[in-house]
């Protein structure tokens, strides 16, 4: 009995951090108190909601029995005026913080699809004949698409009545890619929307019904996919919404007049922090639209004379075939960075093309139409994606004036073809993204953080370090070697791992950790702050059709977060690596590492093999992994390099999966691994290019 008690205690002490899978409901009418149930795992006693929704979240008692720890309910009461919009929700529990899910505040009364109510039978409204009736007044209906299904709703309309019907899904964190179809009573199609250009992949139709009668709304996923985040919010009513945004952004610290189609708005960026805020019409019923925030001085086309750098030019390709031109003075050797912001902002359709010409009209460089290197990570051609183009440029001899043009690759134009051209006198650089949305560091243990570097002309090594750490927390790793300059392998040397290790007595309630990445190019120090992704919501592709369709997860860089971090309960065991020896081999080096588990109780089983990660290491081979016969908590493995491995500083970490009741992934603190340069006659073929 005593043994069982101590085991139970160990399990309780080792509870994993909270995870949230579902919010019930996914949205609420603004200003109205409501009950919010958070569904997930490890949502035990003391769970609290963290959100920027101005409201109090009062716990209504923990769930008991089967649902204990799997749901927590809160009474939500406004503390200030709510604006129609999207709000992040996460849970903080004594054992750490959860992921973020998004919550939507709307203007209309809320209702729920019948088959989405708890305990309801499925497939209740999968055909026109079974359509669920919607009220005639404005409403927001919360529904779900469980697997490959269609949902039908019936509405009654008068002749000449206008009705906006839209789906909020992608915009509020659902993995559904919604399609709306509207039929008349005879089943004849009246309207359809799939990807409204201003609504991410969400859909909206604006219908004026020709005659009185019943009409049917069909909602389905564009791919009939099966998603974990499978909810949608069907909003219908007669309301106005922003039909365009121009300009697409403004300067931090200023107030900006924005055209939203039929109306204008004044966006206050005086206190803006992140790279993006939102803009909406007055008394909005629809969700706001993204609005970029920058730090350069801003101008709006047409621009008279030469550009004064740095600058952000706000322009628009108003008609098909239009090419916008800007001039700037230069001297040979000047370095420039031109970046286009358009499609990635979610408010422009431009497939951007930046081109540079000299005074004589000779094309010097372009971006947006250049040949693409082979993407080794692409499952198939169609799964590859590209963002807005950028152009790094150094003025050649004899050139004193540059003309930079912006146009659409497919020569399109119109209201929705606006852009922001960021121009600066900047040399080579890079951008760093923290690819982990948040981290829970086990007390006395280690957590892994990953980074991705998007190189912008800079090919040297990068070092990523935290700017400040809570007391008792240390960091290791964060090294990326120089780019291999292999055009066939775009994923090389762009990923970093870093571990955060907390002492048993470390203190961290909840906060953000910022990171700075540094590099050096010809003696010039390059520093970049890493940006966080806020959240990562998985989107699945088809799984049984023989062709894998990779989908990009939904992320929330717009939240402007860095790395939200919290301490969590100690893990059942910790893992550590040490380098035992390094040996020179015929074609490279062999590094023998020892791992050691330290368990919190003697009954803890540990795995006999580990995962070993050494990012960016060409020809990585892990061999001879074996547990010590005399000590099951320890063992060794061998890491070998080849002639293709660039001599550089790498990072190595090991991960092991604990199974059973305390199932967890445990990671070791990162060690550095230095691959020495080979003797001249042993140099790999690409060593010279790597040295650049």
């Amino acid at each position: 009995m005593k043994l069982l008690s101590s085991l139970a205690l160990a399990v309780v002490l080792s509870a994993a951090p909270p995870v949230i899978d579902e919010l019930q409901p996914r949205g609420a009418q603004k200003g109205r108190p409501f009950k919010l149930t958070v569904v997930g795992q490890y949502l035990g006693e003391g769970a609290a909601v963290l959100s920027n929704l101005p409201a109090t979240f009062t716990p209504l008692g923990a769930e008991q029995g089967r649902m204990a720890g799997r749901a927590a309910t809160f009474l939500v009461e406004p503390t200030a005026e709510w604006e129609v919009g999207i709000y992040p929700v996460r849970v903080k529990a004594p054992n750490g913080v959860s992921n973020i899910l998004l919550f939507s505040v709307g203007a209309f009364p809320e209702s729920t699809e019948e088959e989405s109510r708890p305990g309801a039978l499925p497939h209740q409204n999968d055909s026109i004949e079974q359509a669920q009736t919607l009220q005639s007044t404005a409403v927001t209906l919360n529904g779900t698409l469980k697997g490959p299904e269609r949902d039908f709703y019936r509405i009654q309309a008068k002749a000449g009545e206008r009705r906006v019907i839209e789906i909020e899904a992608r915009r509020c964190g659902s993995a559904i890619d919604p399609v709306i179809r509207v039929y008349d009573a005879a089943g004849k199609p009246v309207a359809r929307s799939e990807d409204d250009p201003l609504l991410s992949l969400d859909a909206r139709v604006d219908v004026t019904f020709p005659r009185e009668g019943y009409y049917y709304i069909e909602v389905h996923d564009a791919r009939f996919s099966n998603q974990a985040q499978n909810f949608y919010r069907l909003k219908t009513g007669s309301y106005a919404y922003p039909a365009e945004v121009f300009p697409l952004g403004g300067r931090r610290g200023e107030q900006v007049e924005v055209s939203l189609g039929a109306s204008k708005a004044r966006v206050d960026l005086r206190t803006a922090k992140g790279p993006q805020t939102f803009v909406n019409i007055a008394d909005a019923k629809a969700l706001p639209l993204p609005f970029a925030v920058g730090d350069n001085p801003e101008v709006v086309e047409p621009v008279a004379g030469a550009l004064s750098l740095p600058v952000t030019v706000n322009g628009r390709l108003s008609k098909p075939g239009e090419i916008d031109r800007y001039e700037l003075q230069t001297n040979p050797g000047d370095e420039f960075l031109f970046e286009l912001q358009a499609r990635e902002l979610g408010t422009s359709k431009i497939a951007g093309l930046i081109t540079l010409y000299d005074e004589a009209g000779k094309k010097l460089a372009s971006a947006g139409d250049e040949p693409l290197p082979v993407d080794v990570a692409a499952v198939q051609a169609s799964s590859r994606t590209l963002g807005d183009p950028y152009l790094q440029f150094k003025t050649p001899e004899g050139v004193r004036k540059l003309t930079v043009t912006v146009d659409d690759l497919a020569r399109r134009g119109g209201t929705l073809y606006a852009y922001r051209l960021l121009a600066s006198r900047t040399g080579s650089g890079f951008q760093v993204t923290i690819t982990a949305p948040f981290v829970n560091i086990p007390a006395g243990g280690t957590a892994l953080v990953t980074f991705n570097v998007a190189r912008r002309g800079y090919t040297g090594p990068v070092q990523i370090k935290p700017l400040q750490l809570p007391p008792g927390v240390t960091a290791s790793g964060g090294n990326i070697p120089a780019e291999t300059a292999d055009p066939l392998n775009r994923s090389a040397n762009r990923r970093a791992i870093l571990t955060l290790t907390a002492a048993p007595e470390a203190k961290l309630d909840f906060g953000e950790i910022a990171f700075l990445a540094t590099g050096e190019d010809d003696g010039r120090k390059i520093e970049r702050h890493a940006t966080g992704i806020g959240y990562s919501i998985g989107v699945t592709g088809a799984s049984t059709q023989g062709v894998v369709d990779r989908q990009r997860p939904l992320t929330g860089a717009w939240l402007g977060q860095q790395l939200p971090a919290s301490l969590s309960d100690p893990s059942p065991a910790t893992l550590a690596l040490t380098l035992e020896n390094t040996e020179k081999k015929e074609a490279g080096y062999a590094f023998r590492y020892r791992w050691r588990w330290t368990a919190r109780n003697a009954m803890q089983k540990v795995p006999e093999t580990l995962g070993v990660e050494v990012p960016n290491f060409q020809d990585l081979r892990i061999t001879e992994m074996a547990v010590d016969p005399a000590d099951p908590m320890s063992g060794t493995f061998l890491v070998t390099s080849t002639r293709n491995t660039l001599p550089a500083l790498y990072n190595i970490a090991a991960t092991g999966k604990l199974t059973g009741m305390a199932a967890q992934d445990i990671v070791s603190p990162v060690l550095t691994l230095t691959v020495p340069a080979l003797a001249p006659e042993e140099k790999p073929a690409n060593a010279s290019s790597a040295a650049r």
Partner: protein
Amino acid sequence: MRPALLASAATIFAAAHLTAADPPVTFLRDVAPILNKVGCTSGPCHGAAKGKNGFKLSLRGYDPQFDYEALLYDLSGRRFNRAEPGRSLMLAKPTQEVAHGGGLRFEKTSDYYKTIYNWIAQGVPYGDPEKDIVAAVEVVPAEIAMSKSGETAQLKVTARYKDGQVRDVTREATIESNTPDVARVNPGPAINGERIGEATLLVRYEGKFSTIPVTILNPKPGFAWKALPQHNYIDQHIDAKLQKLKIQPSALADDAAFLRRVSLDLTGQLPAPDEIRAFLADPAPSRTKRDRKIDKLIASPAFTDHWTVKWGDLLQSSRKFLGEKGTYGFREWIRDSIAANKPYDKMVRELLTSRGSTYDDPAGNFFRATRDPKPTMEKTTQVFLGVRMVCAQCHDHPFERWTQNQYYEMAAFFSAVGLRPGYEVGEEIVYDQRADYEMKHPKDSRVVPPQFLIASTAPVKIPSDQTRRDALAEWLVSKQNPFFAKAVANRVWSYFFGRGIIDPVDDIRASNPPVNPALLEALTKDLLDHNFDLQHLMRTIVRSRAYQTSFVPNEWNALDADNFSHALPRRVAAEPLMDAVALAAGARPNFPEVPEDTTASQLPDPHVGAEGFLDLFGRPSRESSCECERRTDLSLPQALNLINGKTISEAVADPKGRIAKNVLAGASDAAMVEDLYLATLSRLPTKAETDSAVKYLTGGARTSRAQDLLWALLNSKGFLYSY
């Protein structure tokens, strides 16, 4: 080769030896035909892609300049002994004086030997392309008609050169029959009539060709044409041909057979039992109610689904190329086009000129399967013009006028088309500014400007506000284009008769003539007159008596399979067959990752339900745009699947299926038998069939025996075929 080089080569050799007594011999006029005739330039010999034993000639001698240079300069010119022509390798090899892998090609005593000997002796002159090229090949007689099989006809082939000279080339010409079991080519050349029917002879000489139709009539006495009602111009043209061939068409199919056939052909679905009962009970005149039914079927959603599958096949709508969302989007675009009865020329124009995001304009997915200019051009010509250009990529087309130059000229229309990933997964941007976009000729890397397939003396001038694709689309869908409307009229016809008037439908060429040119011309004109309205064309076809003719032959048309004198039973295609099983058994098919009520004809692409019933029964994988990808054969694995497979066995025993419903509704034995016959064979059972089936049902466990009966009906030819 440059003219100067040719001239200098000729001069060098001319200086070596000249036999004044012999007639002048040139490579172009005299030697190249010999190389082609004796097989040196054939595919298995030196015309192979990599040549043979180190010696490469152009396939079938399509490039005489290349062949001349190969002969002169390969082996450092050692193929000729100018002092002693007889010791030249070019003569020693084919006469096997030295070892020759190709064996003996001609004797030393032959005329061919003498011609080549003289050519070498005269200094291997190339000839004058302005004079020594064949301008035309003429064949006498131009048409062969035999009153019965067993007769023989002789041919004479003459070549007319550019300088006006005419030469008998009967011996050197190549003559082939497209149907050797009707007309066989014997040495001589003598044409033997083997059996009743029609064939076409293809006569080729030096890149020029001519076709000769051969007809062998039925000698049986007693034929008297019995005129049948003609519903429209189709019947007039078919009757005219049949009357000439002494073939009496079959009578009209009965109403039930018509309803089954027209439902399958227009919608890919069997008529439901209630629909059959209502149609049979309709007291209106048969032709009236048939016309009404045709209109109803064309207006149905099933019609749209069915033709969406057809065009999805041809346009390669598949997630392998388009990703999941691209496939759904492209299918939607095709479906919308069919539902709206978009004029065919407009639909094709949209496909060819689409640009921008494939999310916004799904027609742009047309370019994503083939991606590169050359395969895109091949697809465009094959699907929309019925012309196969693929051979001409490497050499001039062997059986058609198309040259390698034309291949690259046509491909140049697409050479600027670029595809670039978009921001969303599965999205690509179609644009016309691809860097380094000029089409280069493989022979000399020269830039090939775009030029339309039909010869035009003036170079293509593309207005500044147009792209090359715009210009191509304008030309391609023009009513003046001799291929465009004809190709689709022929293709659509084939879907209703099981074969094209030109067959294969995507291989239109002079050497593959239509079986009824007047009919094809009339269909084409009708389509043009109705502004490419494909629904009108289909309606006209299925309203014709020819379409509604019974599959039961008579004594005069039993052997005819080409002239539409009776319906030809066709195995039901994969998707309609699976949907037919579902209707017959009253059971839903169970496809993964699509909504539950999805029919086989509504599937987005062939990756859904892959490697199952549909693929076994010939659903195309959409790897190419060839009609040949869809198989409608009947094989042993298919038979075994029908007998033992899950699809049939589970459908028959479905707890919500037709048998269960009949039993639970208390249907009598006779009523159940009638329902099963209507649901499978689309007709009422005969009294004998009813008696036999009722007897079987009452002989044991009724439900189980009813399932047996349904299983037997699903395995019958009456179910598997459209007739």
